[in-house]
């Protein structure tokens, strides 16, 4: 029996020893970022570049959605919340906002779809269900399959605000996909589908439509001529701590903004 106690004691010593060494070596500073899944990829790129320059800083970037980002930062759980939609007045309370960039939302259709250009009104009617056949907007005869995002998604919110307006709702029988990539996949596979994805996720396997005659690009988003766009925002609770502030300042510096631009997001400055 005695030898077991000794072994147990030694184990305990080793464990506490390791624990102490780890906590003592743990000298770097952590910055926690969470929020919009649309902002996540660019925030990760920014964090990686920043950590390479500042090895003593460790930045964790998580998703969860704009709502979660706003909620967590105002509860003080995280250092920086990210949002891809404008904040409502009651959400803004006590929060500092930093616009890091603007992003276009693309109306995507199948590559085989002959339609090239839709007016905002036509889009509104398609997504609300008043137009149900491609033939009504100059395409081939075929039922329009509307693909949307889930309620709460930042991309959907921005799309609703800009395209649908207050009175119109996206038709309730539209297929709901839970990520940008799955919307693209659904559109890529279905010749009659239409969906919306962010400009940063645009790729050659789906076709981007012009709206009101303007093709979505970094330039048309920047000068405001492409209407379907939304802000990317960093949020902090009150005035951020010095290290967090350093990071945000760096993101807004030319160096940080260059990384933002590389991610196909229009820099704020």
């Amino acid at each position, binding site marked *: *029996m005695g030898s077991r106690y000794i072994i147990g004691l030694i184990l305990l010593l080793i464990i506490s020893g390791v624990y102490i060494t780890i906590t003592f070596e743990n000298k770097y500073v952590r910055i926690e970022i969470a929020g919009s899944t649309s902002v996540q990829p660019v925030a990760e790129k920014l964090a990686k570049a920043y950590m390479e320059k500042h090895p003593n800083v460790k930045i964790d970037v998580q*998703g*969860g*959605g*704009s*709502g*979660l980002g706003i*909620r967590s930062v105002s509860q003080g759980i995280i250092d920086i919340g990210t949002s891809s939609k404008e904040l409502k007045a009651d959400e803004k309370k006590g929060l500092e906002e930093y616009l890091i960039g603007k992003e276009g939302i693309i109306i995507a259709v199948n590559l085989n779809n002959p339609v090239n250009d839709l007016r905002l009104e036509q889009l509104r009617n398609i997504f609300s269900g008043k137009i149900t056949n491609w033939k009504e907007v100059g395409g081939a005869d075929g039922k329009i*399959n509307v*693909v949307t995002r*889930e*309620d*709460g*998604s930042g991309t959907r919110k921005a799309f609703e605000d800009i395209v649908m307006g207050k009175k119109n*709702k996206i038709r*309730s*029988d*539209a*297929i*709901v*996909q*839970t990520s940008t990539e*799955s919307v693209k*996949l*659904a559109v890529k*596979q*279905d010749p009659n*589908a239409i969906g919306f994805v962010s400009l940063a996720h645009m790729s050659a396997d789906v076709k981007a439509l012009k709206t009101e005659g303007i093709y979505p690009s970094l330039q048309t988003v920047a000068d405001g001529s492409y209407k379907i766009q939304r802000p990317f925002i960093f949020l902090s609770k009150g005035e951020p701590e010095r290290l967090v502030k350093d990071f945000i300042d760096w993101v807004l510096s030319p160096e940080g903004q260059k990384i933002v631009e590389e991610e196909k997001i229009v820099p704020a400055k």
Partner: protein
Amino acid sequence: MTKSKNEFIIEKGLLITALSSIVIIALIIIFIFIEGLPAMESYGPINFIFGLDWSPSDNQFGVFPMIIGSLGITALSLLMAVPLGLFCAMFLAEVAPNSMRKILKPTIQTLAGIPSVVYGFFGLIILVPIMREQFGGTGFSMLTASIILTVMILPIIISVSEDALRSVPHEYKEASLALGATHWQTIKNVIFPAAIPGIITSIILGMGRAIGETLAIIMVAGNVVQIPHSIFDPVRALTSNIAIEMGYATGIHYNALFATGIVLFLMIIILLIFANYLHYKKKVTIGGGYL
């Protein structure tokens, strides 16, 4: 340390581990009810359960279409998986030569080990386009989800009912064959009826998996909140509803998602009670009572 003291410690230790699972379940149930009941109360339990409109941004929380969605997907997949699974189990237990069983068994077990996201992805890439070309619409449908679920619950039904068929006492089979029955008559009239309680257990387990599956369903069911008019219509399951919107939900919407969990919980309890009743009843009438 004396022997009796040792025994005492082990007995109590085992008791505590057994109790801990009950405590954990009780805590989860309490938590779900605390979080979910406010939404049910403020929206009205009847409106919540039988409401047809789910639109959190307009404060509409009716989960009835999703109850139908969950039940529909589960029923349809059981309809496909039960006959397939039972015949496969019969084949494995009674007909298959040993060499074949050695290949089939591990294959079926592998099927059970594949993560649900892989099934979902397979469905999204392969099955959805096929369904669209064959049956029109978008390809995202109740049927598509059921087919994926069928493949997911098959291994459970096959392996549990095979065990049930195998544990029917050998004397039964010998007696039947001695009376001049053919092999198929023996399986149909003796072995299968004697194994029914175990087979019902396999179906209960399969049903549990089907009704609780989330990720694969989200990827192929289309997630539209509507009562389907045909099996080719897209639907949303209760589990999907929670998973899709949890990240965004605040306030009453958040509570409503927990209330969705309560509905799901009650549904599973009702189905389990029904299935267990069937299980119990069959056990008595057969009189085998082995499984």
